[in-house]
């Protein structure tokens, strides 16, 4: 599905990615973890083509992503911070994105799922953080693409919406889709993900299942396993 080879990226003097090699197979939920500033978002944005790597190649579904924006038809992306044009209404934004990508009717079901009907005629600038995130989720999930990338999907969600999101992710997984998630909520990651990819200082430190990580670090639970990696490398 996604193949990354020897990916390097510098922002000025700050070397964020230092040779990332990663291959993600078809189907399943993969969590990309790492401390703040480890390069998770940069890695994801490189796959999306929003950040242009200094070195290395990225293949999505066997095709090199350079100079070919059409591969993004295969990706649904949920950005980390929901920044929308504030003078647009929710309804208008959804209609515009549909117009730009393709026609779908999934949005109605998702609006119903996240109870967004009362907000459809409100301007995006007047919405609360959690409501914006729900709009963000609708925009992401309304296209039926084989690869879904979620950057901090739980931000600002209330418990009911969080449960709905988890269900939604499982439904998409059952369709055989590949889902990439970054999150700082360890319990969420442990609950939903099949495999984790741990990034540390711009390199892949660990890739495998959660039980493999527990054995490797000799820790009884996931949260402590992650903490022990961080402690070892900063001590």
């Amino acid at each position, binding site marked *: 599905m996604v193949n990354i080879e020897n990916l390097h990226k510098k*922002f000025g003097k700050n070397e964020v990615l230092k040779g990332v090699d990663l291959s993600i197979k078809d189907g399943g939920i993969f969590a990309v973890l790492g401390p703040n500033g480890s390069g998770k978002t940069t890695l994801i*944005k490189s796959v*999306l*083509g*929003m*950040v*242009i790597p200094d070195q290395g190649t990225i293949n999505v579904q066997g095709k090199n992503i350079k100079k070919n*924006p*059409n*591969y*993004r*038809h295969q990706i649904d*992306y949920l*950005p980390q911070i929901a*920044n*929308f*044009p*504030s*003078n647009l209404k929710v309804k208008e934004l959804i209609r*515009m*994105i549909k*117009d*730009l*990508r393709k026609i779908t009717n999934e949005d109605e079901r998702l609006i119903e799922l996240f109870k967004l009907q009362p907000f459809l005629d409100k301007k995006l600038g007047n919405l609360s953080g959690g409501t914006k995130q729900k709009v963000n989720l609708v925009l992401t999930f309304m296209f039926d693409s084989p690869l879904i990338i979620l950057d901090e999907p739980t931000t600002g969600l209330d418990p009911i919406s969080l449960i709905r999101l988890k269900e939604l992710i499982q439904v998409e997984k059952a369709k055989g889709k590949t889902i990439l998630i970054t999150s700082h909520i360890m319990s969420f990651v442990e609950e939903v993900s099949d495999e984790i990819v741990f990034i540390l200082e711009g390199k892949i430190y660990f890739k495998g299942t959660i039980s493999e990580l527990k054995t490797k670090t000799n820790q009884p639970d996931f949260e402590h396993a992650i903490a022990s990696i961080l402690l070892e490398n900063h001590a």
Partner: protein
Amino acid sequence: MLKILKYSFFDLMRSRWSYVYFAFYLLLGVVLLFLNNDLSKAVITLMNVIIVLVPLIGTIFGVMYYYNSKEFTELLLAQPLKRSSIFLGQYLGVALSLSMSLILGLGIPFVFYGLFKSNAIWDFSLLLITGSFLTLIFTALAFNIALSNENKIKGFGYAILLWLFLAVIYDGLFLMTLILFEDYPLDKLSLIGTMLNPIDLSRTLILLKLDISALLGYTGAIFKQFFGTSFGLIVSFIMLIVWVVLPVLRIMFKSKRKDF
């Protein structure tokens, strides 16, 4: 690209500023006609205003729109769209809506005053054409500056400096070189110097078309010889087009290499 153009255009059409800009030109046109009581004279006065104001508005609007629509741009970047079409669409959206405000704002009062029956119609159309060119040029330059500067304040600063340089400082430097080298033949130099600044180029183009070049003395005669002919007119328009194309190419080049 056309879809992005459409959304940017309508976004701007709904904003208050397009109306303010439109209303300003409407008022300017009406007042000038009322005070001058003569179409050709109004055109000359109008030229002096347009030549300075249009570049300023184009620059400020361009920079402001780019920074304000950052969120919109990031949203679009994650969609399956080409980068060049996102930025070109936004650029054309701004430039075309500004040109439209200019053309309609000035056109309406002049048409009602009886433009089509007078012989000032060509001078007036030339004024509107150069005005639109200046909008296209300075909006493109503004987008270039904004693309190269993440920092809003810096971007605004450079944009204002660019306008100040081309509208005021350039003329000063130009005049000083002419005085310094007055012992040498300067016709070619001053012709080239005029060509290299879109504001000067537009001003000269309109002045000579208005047939008041007699006021300009010997250099005026040389200018008239050049700009007055159809060859000169074509060369000037080619220069204006080059002034649009180069910054637009840089927008495409720069946007392909930028990280978001």
